[in-house]
């Protein structure tokens, strides 16, 4: 009988992530002052901006994993791609909701169809379509290949949505969101908390990405025993 290895209770980086994000949350509420004359609700920016960044990171990871599958033809890459796409979609939804909440407070309406908002909706549609495609193919290898190709195509639109569309459409509708998307009126402390939030959420992303991959891989391998 092989010796039963004990599962370690807690890993150090899990604790790190938990505490890090808790500190960021506390700081975002209680440490940095009220910002930009937009009221306390503007603090949602410290959630919304990292979330949007993670969304893009996730979809980028999905693309890389899709390339990985197409090159190696090992299904574990497909597991990774799906896990990343799911997280991307989740964070896109979070970004849309938090963005709408912020917009309501700052500009009075939930929705504006300004470049950033339009981009996130398009992303939702594109990656929703990804899952529709997966549902329409039965063979695992073929599904992984087709979905992988789509993933790569889908991510090509992302630089467009993030950089080109706002720049081009701004010439018609100069929009505060484009400025506040970056630094508009932040002091050093605010930037630090924002940056910390970015790092914290990125770490969290890699954690749940890893979990998602392992979950998928287990399910696939167990079902095929």
């Amino acid at each position, binding site marked *: 009988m*092989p010796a039963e*290895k004990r*599962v370690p209770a807690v890993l150090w980086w899990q604790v790190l992530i938990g505490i890090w*994000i*808790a500190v960021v949350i506390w700081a975002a*509420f*209680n440490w940095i002052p009220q910002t930009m004359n937009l009221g*306390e609700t503007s603090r949602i920016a410290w959630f919304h901006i990292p979330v949007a960044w993670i969304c893009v990171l996730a979809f980028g990871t999905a693309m890389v994993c899709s390339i990985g599958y197409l090159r190696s033809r090992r299904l574990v890459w497909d597991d990774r791609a799906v896990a990343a796409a799911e997280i991307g979609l989740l964070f896109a939804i979070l970004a849309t909701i938090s963005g709408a909440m912020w917009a309501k407070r700052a500009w009075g309406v939930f929705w504006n169809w300004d470049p950033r908002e339009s981009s996130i909706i398009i992303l939702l549609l594109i990656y929703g379509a990804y899952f529709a495609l997966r549902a329409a193919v039965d063979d695992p290898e073929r599904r992984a290949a087709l979905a992988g190709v789509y993933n790569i195509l889908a991510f090509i639109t992302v630089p467009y949505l993030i950089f080109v569309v706002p720049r081009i459409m701004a010439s018609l509708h100069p929009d505060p969101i484009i400025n506040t998307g970056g630094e508009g009126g932040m002091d050093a402390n605010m930037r630090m908390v924002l940056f910390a939030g970015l790092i914290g959420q990125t770490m969290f992303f890699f954690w749940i990405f890893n979990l998602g991959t392992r979950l998928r891989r287990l399910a696939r391998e167990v079902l095929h025993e």
Partner: protein
Amino acid sequence: MSDLVYASIVILIIWAGIFFWVFRLDRRLRRLERALTARSEQGATMADDQSG
């Protein structure tokens, strides 16, 4: 002042919930993975016995 503190505590509780849910998932996965590798090791040794 207390409004913000109150709000941050609510969010912190939500975060704690999310964190521990993810943590529990991780731990379950690791247990499953250990169990599966242990099982396949056992299966391998049994196969050795049979073919030996």
